[in-house]
């Protein structure tokens, strides 16, 4: 099972000081969190993609390419790559390039984005969101799997005798996850192709998340990729830790209360009760995360959000140290102890290459 961190790359003021990092500082610090994640033994670092302030992640493969050069072991991914507004040809080229540079330490997660105006800014219509995700991804798959592609669709100029270069490393395309919080069509898409399905598992009650994952698992089996419990599931989660639970709550509260996504709605306590948000001691975070397996079945990837909302950089690095030093070692052991033998490991470049995947 893979454990890692994922970030949206937002810039926000620290409520205590009112000061926000510059774009330059935020980017450099984000890189440091990735390096720290590798240092403490985490498996995955993933970042989002946004094309508007207050985010700094408009160019994920540039950032990930830099991290590739400064790391040797950690797998790099996205959370998510916009399959709706990016040209699938450019995604095919960018991520195949990254895959070569990283010697295969790359996968990616497809998403539709959550900012309405991004569609018109990139010449698209948000009402076509699902159709764009379906058509663009169908083309992306062909570009990675067929050396020469003739193609015609609704959203992009046609292709005749087109070869996307570089070809995927060892002829094995990067593994793809499809991320969606609330669109059953995306769970269906992931199931159809036998790709991974990722639920960010933040903001929403577990009953909802369970329906999405159950739908994916059921349809994965329906499309003949194997039993439902062998479908490839990833989950997110947001954590904040201190040695003592009450310190974690007290420190996290001002960030929660001022957050553009959490603030001014249900209280921190209500949100912790109704959603998987976990604020407390390392042991509490362990217990809460182990519960995910009870709720959603055995799964392959767990990503934690530990930064953003103006959290100070030192506190973010400490979260990663808690994860690597205390939380993830226990989770690895506990998850492994309860996992039946037929549950697949998370796919990697090496495993896909060995399996002769196309």
């Amino acid at each position, binding site marked *: 099972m893979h454990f890692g961190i994922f970030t949206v790359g937002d810039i926000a003021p620290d409520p205590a000081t009112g000061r926000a990092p510059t774009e330059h500082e935020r980017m450099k610090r984000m890189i440091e969190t990735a390096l720290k994640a590798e240092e403490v033994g985490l498996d995955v670092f993933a970042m989002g993609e946004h094309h508007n302030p207050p985010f700094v992640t408009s160019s994920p493969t540039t950032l990930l390419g830099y991290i590739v050069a400064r790391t040797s072991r950690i797998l790099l991914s996205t959370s998510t790559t916009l399959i709706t507004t990016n040209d699938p040809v450019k995604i095919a080229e960018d991520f195949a390039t990254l895959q070569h540079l990283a010697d295969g330490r790359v996968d990616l997660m497809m998403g539709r984005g959550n900012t309405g105006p991004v569609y018109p800014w990139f010449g698209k219509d948000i009402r076509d969101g699902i159709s764009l995700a*379906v*058509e663009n991804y169908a083309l992306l798959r062909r570009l990675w799997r067929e050396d020469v592609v003739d193609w015609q669709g609704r959203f992009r100029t046609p292709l005749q005798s087109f070869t996307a270069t570089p070809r995927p490393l060892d002829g094995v395309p990067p593994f793809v996850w499809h991320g969606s919080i609330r669109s*059953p069509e995306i769970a*269906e898409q992931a199931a*159809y192709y036998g790709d991974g399905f990722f639920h960010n598992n933040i903001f929403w009650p577990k009953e909802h998340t369970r329906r999405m994952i159950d*739908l994916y698992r059921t349809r994965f089996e*329906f499309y003949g990729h194997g039993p439902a419990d062998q479908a490839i599931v990833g989950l997110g989660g947001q954590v904040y830790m201190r040695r003592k639970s009450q310190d974690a709550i007290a420190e996290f509260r001002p960030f929660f209360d001022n957050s553009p996504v959490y603030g001014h709605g249900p209280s921190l306590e209500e949100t912790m009760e*109704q959603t998987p948000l976990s604020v407390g001691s390392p042991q509490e975070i362990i217990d809460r995360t182990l519960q995910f397996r009870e709720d959603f079945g055995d799964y392959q990837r767990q990503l934690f959000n530990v930064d953003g909302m103006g959290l100070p950089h030192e506190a973010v690095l400490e979260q990663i140290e808690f994860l690597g030093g205390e939380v993830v070692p226990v989770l690895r052991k506990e998850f492994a102890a309860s996992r039946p033998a037929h549950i697949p490991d998370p796919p990697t470049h090496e495993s896909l290459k060995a399996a002769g995947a196309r």
Partner: protein
Amino acid sequence: MKRTIAVVSGGLGSPSSSRLLADRLAAAAEREVRELGDEVEVRVAEVRDHAHDLVDSMVSGYPATELKGALETVAGADGLIAVTPTFTASYSGLFKAFFDVLDMVDDNALADKPVLIGATGGTARHSLVLENAVRPLFAYLRGVVVPTSVFAAPEDWGGTAAPDLLAHRIDRAAAQLAVEIHRRDAPVVRDPFEPTPFADLLGAG
């Protein structure tokens, strides 16, 4: 056949004149539905009871458990009676919030559902609020709003000739709602997690 009528009252006071009107409408509708040969159960939601949850849902994106129950009651009902006080020439914001969140959760919730609309106000001069604000709201949500809407002004609750007029309008509106309920099959609440075959998604592109 067993029918359910959901009542949504936007009154803020207790007792509220909106609730008073809603109860009168519900009692009349219950009687009319029974006369057509159906069993009927009335289930009432006061938006005031869900005030915090409504705002939280707007901010968080998901409805709290109790509110979710009220929304499901409305979505699953055979008919809806919706009554709002008149605030600044329109429905109250909290009343609107209830239907905003309902639409967020299930944008098909009121499609083809018989709806009886009512309103209260501090003066009879507000009475067109039903035609100018409330009816378009439910038309947008694709409800089937019965032709008679019922506005109750202060003088409708007392005076000499007025009570008869209010009672007459209530009975006429309730009879129209009952006919619309009676001639429909029970509503089918769509499961949002019902799979769409991927071939259909590909074909839609």
